[in-house]
């Protein structure tokens, strides 16, 4: 009983520490918001990459290491797992809201399976869904480029995946 309680609080503690580690490319959200931190098992933090070729993967692991060390958890190991594969449905609700405030249209909840279907993006500035896709590939592997046809602002969208 005692051991179980300790494990649960360790997991909470680690998630709390890592909720202050920003994503290196989209610093408005943390690695916990994005669903990169999956679990804490024993003395190991389980993380997963968002995209296979995401160049931020190594930086993310290094940032997590630094945060754990600073908080006195230098004995904790970090393990990367590919399975089950990350999807945009793992982005938390507060993460979605932070993305929108930052000017990136978040993927609609539950849209991961429809990644290639046309779901029109919602403009993060004016909320209009009268928008067009400018480029399916954007400035990072996780984003595509759009434009609002009402307020005319271009914006990034987090790809459904």
């Amino acid at each position: 009983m005692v051991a179980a309680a300790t494990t649960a609080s360790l997991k909470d503690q680690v998630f709390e520490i890592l909720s202050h580690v920003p994503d290196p490319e989209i610093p408005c959200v943390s690695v916990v918001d994005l669903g990169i931190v999956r679990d804490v098992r024993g003395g190991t933090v389980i993380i997963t990459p968002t995209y296979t070729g995401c160049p931020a993967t190594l930086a993310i692991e290094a940032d997590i290491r630094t945060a754990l060390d600073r908080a006195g958890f230098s004995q904790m190991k970090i393990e990367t797992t590919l399975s089950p594969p990350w999807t945009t449905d793992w982005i938390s609700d507060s993460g979605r809201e932070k993305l929108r405030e930052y000017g990136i249209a978040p993927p609609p909840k539950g849209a991961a399976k429809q990644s290639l279907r046309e779901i029109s993006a919602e403009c993060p500035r004016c909320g209009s869904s009268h928008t067009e896709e400018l480029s399916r590939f954007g400035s990072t592997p996780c984003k595509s480029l759009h434009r609002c046809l009402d307020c005319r602002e271009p914006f990034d969208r987090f790809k459904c995946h």
Partner: protein
Amino acid sequence: MRDPSLFDYACRLGDDSLILGQRLSEWCGHAPMLEVDLSFANVGLDLIGQATHFLKLAGGAEGAGRDEDKLAFHRDVLDFKNCLLVEQPNGDFAQTMARQFLFSNYQELLFRQLCSSANLTIVAIAAKAVKEVAYHVRLANEWMVRLGDGTAESHARTVEGLDWMWRFADELFEVDSTVESLIASGVACDVRKLRSEWDARITKVLRDATLDVPKARRVTKGGRVGHHSEHLGHLLTEMQFLQRAYPDSQW
């Protein structure tokens, strides 16, 4: 060696992705428009990510202490197991797109099958990557139609690019004794069974693109056993420059 067949198979998968990723990176900053520049860079990154995972698996199967970086940067031409298609020079935009069209359609079918491989690492890589490859397929298919059904100039260039790449397509669906044993144990995909669906996909897009399926010609192959075209050596010279000049340097 711990598992020579798996080492070989993982190198084949990883080298296909690595070499095509390197080829696409040559377009960075040179593409005809921003959208294309972004897309080739992104597709290249996805492919290099796949290569990292497959070559890591290969290193483990070899058991000689070589990691994915060692395998990528410390092997020479004869040790690369990629198919000849991916090492072909970019040529013009149409030729690059023709290569991507043939390869991505093959890779999507392949990864779908590998999602049920008996090797769980292969399953994890394929399940993750297949979602990204679906984007590559859509990009290439759309561009083939835009180019083929575009101007007389874009049509002619696409015919020419496709004609060059076509001779390397058959190698994608070859199975040799190395792979036979892995097919039997459920690890590898029997690519021969993918051919009819691949043909149907290719034919459909080419029809939409007002392009003919190129005539069958003598098959050019050998990449899987390390017999490469002259082009691969030049590609490696650039890709491996730093590790050749400063072996094992890290930063």
